[in-house]
């Protein structure tokens, strides 16, 4: 998650230099729309589905999915926000940001929780998110939706819904923003 946030925070300070645009705003919209359809199909509707966007990059994506689900099914699926900074295995490397709060204002017991993030990379954020979810209750199932799967997994984690598979080098960086997705490098 949140390559963007990490770049903006001091220990990892540096400037993201985009090299290639890999998705534009229309691509993002189509991918979101398709993922919304896949979520509905896989769960036979959205009755028990709740969305949880991971701070910070997953939050706007969760909101887009929520809007798409509303348009398709006519149901407003609950959407929450989760910051996993307290649950990371590398606490101390990631700051806790006051402006990235956790807010899960609905029960998740028995629900199908769809975790939403912008970029899936090593999988450590998702491991932390699974850990964090247990302090809110016991979901019936947890699924994972990401806009970009860039590979290089370090844990046995795989996404259920993917916007785009993007092969990358480990030292590259991916930036998902409102107008598309860029591949580039962080320059110190």
């Amino acid at each position, binding site marked *: *998650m949140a*390559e963007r946030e*990490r770049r903006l925070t*001091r*220990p*990892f300070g540096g400037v993201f230099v985009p090299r290639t645009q890999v998705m534009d705003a229309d691509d993002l919209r189509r991918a979101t729309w398709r993922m919304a359809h896949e979520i509905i199909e896989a769960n036979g509707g959205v009755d028990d589905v709740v969305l949880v966007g991971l701070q910070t990059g997953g939050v706007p994506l969760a909101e887009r999915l929520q809007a798409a689900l509303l348009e398709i099914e006519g149901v407003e699926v609950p959407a929450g926000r989760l*910051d996993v*900074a*307290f*649950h990371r295995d*590398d*606490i*101390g*490397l*990631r*700051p*806790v940001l*006051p402006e990235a*709060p*956790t*807010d899960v204002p609905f029960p998740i017991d028995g629900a199908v929780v769809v975790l939403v993030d912008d970029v899936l*990379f*090593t*999988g*450590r*954020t*998702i491991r932390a998110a699974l*850990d*964090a979810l*247990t*302090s*809110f*209750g016991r979901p019936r199932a947890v699924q994972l939706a990401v806009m970009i799967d860039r590979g290089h997994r*370090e844990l046995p984690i795989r996404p259920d819904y993917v916007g785009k598979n993007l092969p990358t080098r*480990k*030292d590259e960086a991916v930036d998902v923003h409102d107008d598309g997705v860029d591949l580039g490098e*962080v320059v*110190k």
Partner: protein
Amino acid sequence: MTDLLSITDLERGDIERLLDLTDRFAEISTRQIPKVPALRGKTVVSLFYEDSTRTRLSFETAAKRLSADTMNFSVSTSSVKKGESLRDTAQTIEAMGIDCVIVRHKSSGVPWQLTRWVDASVVNAGDGWHEHPTQALLDCYTIRQQRGSLDGMHIAIVGDVKHSRVARSDIWAFTKLGATVTVVAPPTLLPPAVGAYPVQVSHDIESVLPTVDAVYLLRMQRERMTEALLPSLREYTATYGLTRRRAELLRDDALVMHPGPINRGVEIDPDIADEQRSVIVDQVRNGVSVRMAVLFLLLGSGTELHTPTDALQEASA
């Protein structure tokens, strides 16, 4: 920052950053399982040479919600009874490999002394008449929660200012955050150098109450009053207590605060402590969140760590 010894060490920005972070920790306490692994593997010892209920429990709850291991040291059941010195006790504890010492002592300056003897982070939980920084931070957090900001507020601190470490820490914290402070007390209960503090002084509570946004009542510390400072507690109540009649002088939106434990019927009327304007219970609740933020900043935060560049790869995910 590796220790929290006094409010005077902190800049306005430091305090605000900590209070901003506190919201994040308050959220943890609302979860079905209010515990996160942020301080897993850290050991926190509370070293209390003075009695305490709420501060010790509050720190312990805070540490446990962050998954730190906690150890308790209370003088009555320890080797201090056998004559062990503070230094030897501290070094014994340190040898067990701990990360943080929370200390309360009847003598001012003990937390500073400890920092010279141990490598662990030291948190001042009250040293004599000097400071009680986490109490001031939770007071500021409580006021911000109610009002959004302390800027331009007028706060009265009423009672035994002379013996009160809470008053000293609060005076510094409130004024750093932009409030003006009036201390209200009989002359015998004011510190001799009260002019050195950034406060106004009054001996007439009834003229002050209508002008304040918050009134902070201090506990009458009977255990510290060795001299004849007051004719009687009843006379104190009659001239300085927040009686029901005086409470009517307060504005409807003024906050009533108290650090606890309350002497009901001495500094505050029993009913006033429970009424709408009183935020005394909020202060206790917020104490846990603020202390979680303090422990996390001292022991677990990445915000001040220097991170080598190759850690970027490891940290990304």
